[in-house]
């Protein structure tokens, strides 16, 4: 949407009036234009609509069923349960109908970190990061302000990369998604990196119907992060301000045979083939469930 234009050509000539209007053009009009372009502090946009406070809901699924811990699911013919189901999402960008990109950011937080030369630095995290803890149910997250209007896609990264992934997680505010979690570990203290995808559960390996063996798939490292783009038209407005993303956790483990001992545990480097199978499915597990009121 183009900014409104103020046409002055039809105003009659009067020197005093002209001086007054010159003052107006000099001072008032820029203020008017700036106020039209002012966006919410959480979005960096070349659009011009009024900012809308938006939330992001991430719903965990297991195939066509809502994901819930304590539920026994059929996975490739074997009974499985889910104890942990969490995923890190970052680098959110919404694309408007006229092709402009709106990057979503968050309140900056500065923490100790190491640069790529392993030198001590401090690093400011300003990217919007979401930790969807779907083992606890629907993950609802304040997204920030984005311009109201029509959009054609939302993209994000599965994972945390670069300098954001070289920080000390123990020194974030307790409510920050990148802080060291105290229930299910979200960061490898022994390897200094975030666990992008964490799935833990049990599987029935002896075919008696009861789950009996633990399995876990923990995926991290920059090289395993994946970008996801959901191309769907949607509109953001004051009454349409919750973006609903669905993540199918079964899709992540679709190609795994959890009854096979060689496909039950991976933390990446300790079982690369299993990790590779999971990584190959990262970007296909997400769908946009819609944008609606909160």
């Amino acid at each position, binding site marked *: 949407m183009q900014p409104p234009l103020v046409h002055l050509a039809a105003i009659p000539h009067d020197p005093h009036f002209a001086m007054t209007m010159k003052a107006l053009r000099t001072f008032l009009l820029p203020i008017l234009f700036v106020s039209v372009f002012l966006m919410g502090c959480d979005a960096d946009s070349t659009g011009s609509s009024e900012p809308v406070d938006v939330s992001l809901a991430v719903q965990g699924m297991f195939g066509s069923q809502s994901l819930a811990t304590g539920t026994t699911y059929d996975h490739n013919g074997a009974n499985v349960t889910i104890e942990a189901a969490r995923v890190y999402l970052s680098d959110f960008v919404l694309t408007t109908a006229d092709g402009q990109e709106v990057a979503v950011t968050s309140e900056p937080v500065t923490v*100790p970190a190491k640069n790529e030369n392993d030198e001590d630095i401090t690093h400011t995290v300003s990217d919007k990061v979401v930790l969807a803890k779907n083992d606890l149910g629907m993950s609802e997250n304040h997204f920030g302000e984005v311009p109201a209007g029509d959009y054609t896609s939302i993209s994000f990264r599965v994972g945390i990369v670069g300098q954001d992934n070289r920080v*000390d997680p123990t020194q974030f505010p*307790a409510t920050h998604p990148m*802080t*060291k979690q105290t229930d299910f570990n979200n960061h490898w*203290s022994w390897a*200094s990196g975030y666990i992008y995808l964490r799935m833990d559960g049990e599987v029935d390996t002896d075919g008696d119907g009861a789950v009996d063996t633990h399995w876990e798939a923990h995926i991290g490292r920059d090289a395993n992060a994946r970008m996801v783009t959901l191309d769907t038209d949607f509109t953001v407005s004051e009454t349409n301000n919750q973006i609903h993303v669905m993540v199918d956790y079964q899709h992540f483990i679709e190609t795994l045979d959890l009854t096979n001992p060689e496909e039950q545990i991976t933390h990446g480097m300790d079982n690369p083939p299993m990790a590779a199978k999971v990584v190959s499915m990262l970007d296909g597990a997400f769908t946009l469930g819609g944008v609606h009121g909160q």
Partner: protein
Amino acid sequence: MTRVVYIAVATLLLLSGCGIAGPEARDPAVLDVPEGFDPVPIPSHNPITAAKVDLGERLFHDRRLSEDRSISCASCHFENAAFADPRPLSPGVHGRLGIRNSPSLVNVGYLDLLFWDGGSFTLEAQALAPIEADFEMNMNLGVLMERLKADPAYAREFEDVFGEGPSVATLTKALAAFQRTIRSGGSRYDRYLAGQTSALSAAERRGMDLYNGKANCASCHNGFLLTNQAFENNGIEPAGSDSGRARITGLPEDFLTFRVPSLRNVEKTAPYMHDGRFQTLDDVIAHYDRGGSGVRNQSPQIQPLQLTESEKQDLIAFLKTLTDDIILTGISP
């Protein structure tokens, strides 16, 4: 034992620009170090205070940090072994063994990266790895926080030190602050370097010359810490699936590389190597004299030394002069 901690009170100018408010800013400290040592790096977000060090030391010795309340940090870092472990592998809860020897914590505050493979970036974050590892303390952080909060003395101490109760942030800060005070220096070798030529015997001086020359130890074990902190493959044959730093980086050039340890107090820190496979310094010298095992990615610096038996003994004699007077002596486990 009497703890001797040299603490000098710094002015608030040290904290200018840090934006730190509250109890931690009241009595910040600077750690004295032996002559010839760099200052201990102290991050601005975790200044040293006497109260914080006291709290960290108490936590260091507290077995409640482990799942079954049987293991504390001090259970694998023995003060009388230069805060290392005289066992090749340290047993964790339920007698579980890991794959690496517990390294010495003396002068740990100087290290850029922690663990044999450099997997941890900061001393603060490092503490969580053994706490969480199922073969070490196997502790859920949420349960640990509840244990600490349930102790009125801890609740009071954390509040006094940090202005808030136990949390992951304050727990790791306290432990790191204590560990930064574990410093050593003042060995006979240091005294020799300072000009006291009588500090080393003739055999020890011959050993020193071998260390810096024919034996090529100083190519990696140099500087005031007697380590360049690089990651090297010193020709140790792999045991099991441990790939060293490659486990962290995934890079083939890091296969079987491990952090070069400091040789300060090496007389006290047996057994040796990342998995404690060598019981004596004689074993270590024999390994290097052979030129390593020729394992894939072995450093080209590891070559046969062709040391005589007399030279080996002189070298070992010199290594024993690297034993320091530990500045911090704490509470026995």
